[in-house]
């Protein structure tokens, strides 16, 4: 890897989503899309190649973040991590996403990188991915044939692979409106603050007093794709959150995952710590008034 050398490609700067879609339709898998480009530029310095790079830089109107109490949150394709961080609505109603944004990379990258870009990267270590997976929602994809929505539950298919077809552009993320008793939380473990996660986890709970009506738990860095802990969620459903239950959850999470050793951590560490991290995100979510 030589970080001074960029490979050659044609840069295309469409001015509308329709133009971008028709370029994708024309070039198919020979084209890649960037908004901030923080990930693709680094990838290109370490071997990633594309014939055509389509930048969203000249398309206006995609950098919105709109919250409506009845329909939820809409995040556009060009909305940056910093925009998420400066939204009081996200902090109040989607704390897991706000917390993921607050520790995401560095201020410089938060100013350029987008939430949707992080989802499309489909890395199991993605912090926004982890939070969004727990929160649930849909990704709006636009192709030549029109728009379709894909649930986050069906979006990440393999390492680096999403349900987006090569001729589609992800134009929006929708997160559902919070219901009464709705709580969420995100946590990440790294060696240093700027590093990628050794483990990350998010909890999204629907509480009725001390009782948990519904739970969504997501965890990253323990499989090729971000993972939901459905067996552990079942333990929470309809149960009162007690210390005993939390200890049972710690054990259960260890049984539900099968992580690997890699540059950032070992399988042994992840197996030991994942349950504790899930316990902490549940506790943190519950502690929020």
């Amino acid at each position, binding site marked *: 890897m030589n*970080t*001074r050398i960029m490979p*050659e490609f*044609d840069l295309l700067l469409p001015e509308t989503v329709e133009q971008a879609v028709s370029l994708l339709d024309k070039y198919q898998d020979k084209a890649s899309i960037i908004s901030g480009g*923080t990930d693709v530029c680094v990838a290109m*310095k370490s071997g990633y190649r594309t014939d055509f790079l389509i930048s969203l830089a000249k398309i206006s109107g995609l950098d919105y973040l709109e919250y409506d109490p009845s329909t939820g949150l809409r995040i556009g394709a060009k909305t940056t991590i910093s925009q998420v961080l400066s939204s009081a609505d996200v902090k109040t109603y989607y704390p897991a996403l706000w917390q993921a944004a607050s520790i995401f990379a560095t*201020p*410089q990258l938060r100013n350029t990188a987008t939430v949707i870009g992080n989802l499309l990267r489909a890395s199991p270590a993605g912090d926004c991915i982890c939070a969004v997976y727990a929160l649930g929602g849909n990704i709006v994809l636009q192709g030549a044939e029109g728009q379709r929505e894909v649930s986050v539950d069906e979006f990440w298919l393999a390492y680096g692979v999403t349900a987006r077809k090569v001729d589609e552009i992800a134009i929006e993320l929708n997160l559902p409106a919070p219901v009464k008793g709705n709580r969420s939380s995100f946590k990440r473990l790294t060696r240093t603050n700027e590093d990628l996660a050794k483990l990350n986890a998010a909890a999204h709970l629907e509480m009725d007093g001390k009782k948990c009506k519904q739970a969504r738990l997501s965890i990253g860095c323990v499989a090729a794709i971000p993972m939901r802990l459905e067996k552990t969620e079942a333990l929470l459903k309809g149960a009162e959150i007690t210390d005993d239950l939390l200890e049972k959850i710690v054990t259960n999470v260890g049984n539900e995952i099968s992580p690997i050793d890699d540059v950032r951590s070992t399988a042994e560490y992840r197996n030991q710590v994942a349950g504790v991290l899930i316990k902490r995100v549940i506790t943190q979510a519950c502690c929020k008034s």
Partner: protein
Amino acid sequence: MNNHDITLKINGEEHKVTVPANRLLLDVLREDLQMTETKYGCGTGECGACTVLVEGNKNICSCVTLAATMDGREITTAAGLEKDGELHPVQEAFIDEFAVQCGYCIPGMVLKTVSMLTENPNPTEEEIRHGLEGNMCRCTGYTKIVKAVQKASQIMAGSES
């Protein structure tokens, strides 16, 4: 590979340049325009030596920014902070607190500090340290840099102690 004719307004002055598609903003500044105050560090958006401000106050890494995507934008480099021969209060504070050792990270540190103090004029030490993430110094151990940011905050508030 295609070329792009772009206009960048750098430190208040317009520059028209023709750049190949893969030209990074950092290389346009350093190589094409000979503005070497912006430094090349890691090249992967981690160390912050290449930090510039866009549209006034948005700090970004120019080493992972394609120049052609910045057409028409206003860029501020560390050299653009000086006004009429007077250093910016942040630059003064870095000198006063001896926050500079080898100096390589300092253009990025100074720009990050300007950006941080514009958004939050009176940050706590914790906020300063969180804000300086993304700018690495391998000499001073950050203590003096944090002090310089605190000093700059005081100068800018007009209550220098």
